[in-house]
């Protein structure tokens, strides 16, 4: 009660102190484990700091120039891009199809939602362990199936042309259910009356999908694409189980390479420079958001 009698200025000061005091625990952790490491990566990326060195030595942009010349670096960037291409659009298309299916009312629709969504709550490590046996050469489920229909076994994880597509297929299976729920909530925001009016006008389902559903779902599509992109770029758990980046770096992704540089080869400077590359990619993805400010609708 006392504060009610104190002056305007002191009350404002008090509010400021109170706000910052309440914010300080959360901000402390955000600063130490998000803001500071970003700055540290930028700094260490400009240095040489290998195993056995006491302190980092400033070398300017040399790490980045070396990346630009390195075949391995471009191979890894290529792998990362290929994995994103093979996962983002397919998982979005399938996620949308799944949402269209489970948006209808029929018996067993809850079962379908459960079936499509359960891979989301399973650890990637568990999923990779299961799919390992699907993809395993000769005795794996996929190769057994191929042998059964008279084809040659593929042993998909052992060849550089098939390893990324195989991992992508697994990931689309895991991710589609996650993207489905965003489309589902987008679909449920479209009023039923629009479809009724279109039906009276004699519109075919495909026309309705193109002229009503897709345009009204555009903000959701944009927003989902940033989620899908972010997730695909930072996915590495399965690599540890399935291939460790092989064959011949054929499945090494950017984040996995950061892990290799930092924790297998103990080169924290290169790991930091690679982290900066990653940060730039993450920033680029989040810029997508600003293409259309309508996407903010989802915040509410």
């Amino acid at each position, binding site marked *: 009660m006392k504060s009610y009698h104190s002056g305007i200025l002191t009350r404002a000061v008090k509010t400021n102190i109170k706000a910052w005091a309440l914010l300080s*625990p959360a901000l402390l952790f*955000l600063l130490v*484990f998000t803001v500071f490491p970003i700055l540290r990566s930028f700094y260490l990326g400009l240095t040489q700091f290998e195993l056995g060195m006491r302190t980092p030595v400033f070398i300017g942009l040399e790490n980045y120039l070396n990346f630009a010349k390195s075949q391995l670096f471009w191979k890894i960037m290529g792998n990362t891009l290929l994995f994103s291409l093979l996962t983002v659009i397919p998982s979005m298309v399938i996620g949308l199809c799944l949402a269209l299916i489970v948006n209808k009312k029929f018996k067993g629709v809850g079962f*379908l939602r459960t079936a499509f969504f359960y891979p989301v*709550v399973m*650890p990637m490590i568990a999923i990779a362990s*299961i799919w390992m046996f699907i993809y395993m050469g000769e005795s794996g489920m996929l190769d057994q199936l191929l042998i059964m229909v008279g084809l040659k076994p593929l042993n998909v994880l052992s060849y550089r042309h098939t390893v990324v597509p195989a991992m992508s297929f697994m990931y689309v299976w895991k991710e589609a259910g996650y993207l489905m729920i965003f489309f589902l909530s987008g679909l449920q925001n479209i009023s039923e009356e629009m479809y009724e009016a279109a039906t009276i006008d004699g519109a075919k389902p495909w026309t309705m999908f193109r002229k009503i559903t897709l345009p009204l779902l555009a903000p959701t599509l944009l927003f989902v694409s940033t989620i899908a992109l972010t997730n695909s770029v930072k996915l590495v758990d399965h690599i540890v189980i399935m291939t460790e980046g092989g064959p011949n770096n054929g499945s090494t992704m950017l984040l996995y390479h950061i892990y290799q540089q930092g924790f297998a080869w103990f080169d*924290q400077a290169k790991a930091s420079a690679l982290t900066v590359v990653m940060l730039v990619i993450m920033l680029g993805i989040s810029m997508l958001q600003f293409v259309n400010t309508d996407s903010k609708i989802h915040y509410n």
Partner: protein
Amino acid sequence: MQKHNRGLMPVFGFLLAIFWLIPLVWMIGTAFTEGSYNMSLLPQTKPTFENLRYVWNAVPFGRYYLNTVIVVIVTYSVQFITVTMAAYALATLKFKGEKLVFIIIFIQIIIPNDVLISPNYMTLSDLGLTDTKLGIMLPFFGSAFGIFLLRQMFKTIPTALAEAAVIDGCNTFQIIKNVYVPSAKTAYISFGLVSVSYHWNNFLWPLIVTNSPENRTLTVGLALFAKSKEAVMQWSNVCAATFIISAPLVLAFFIFQKKFINSFISSGIK
């Protein structure tokens, strides 16, 4: 046309669902049947708990379970406090530097901790916290997602409620505890489910941080087992281990399907 369409969609949906369920059915079936060199979708022998028993004894899964439960509970408990305080300040108080706080929050929403493994490990080793459970949890104690989610929820709570509490003689902490926290139950559940699932399933960071079985979590334990010599070609054992680590969350999801799905929708904040 419309009717015809409705008739086909569910059928197509059920076929897809069967495809989606194959890995789960195979995993559970294999976990509970005797080991065999032939892979078959459905169990060929009598159900057995032998694989589960073998794996549970071969790997300290009991210890890993305890570690994971500790990590998950402590992380969410600390998040609960830090996030509630920050969200309350952002939702109800006008103060200098608000923009700066939002910038910091957005930085974490754009740059998830998963990509900062290398610098964060250095910080952890500066603090002498490598190979500790605290080290696994520490980077997640402040959650931008949680702050954002709760702030949105707190904003919808009428200030009249808080004013009434002030008249009743409540201080700030009592107002938060008695007015804001109870009114934001659904947001806490959403944040809790997302946080718990994330930390239960998280792998790379605990793998990097921990060195000893005393601190390893379930996912790290599974990875080490799946890559060990005993596990090669022994899919019944690997499936049993997979079952052990994923069963709690998958089971919880099967029971609380709607809650999980609604919670994960909020996890899409970008």
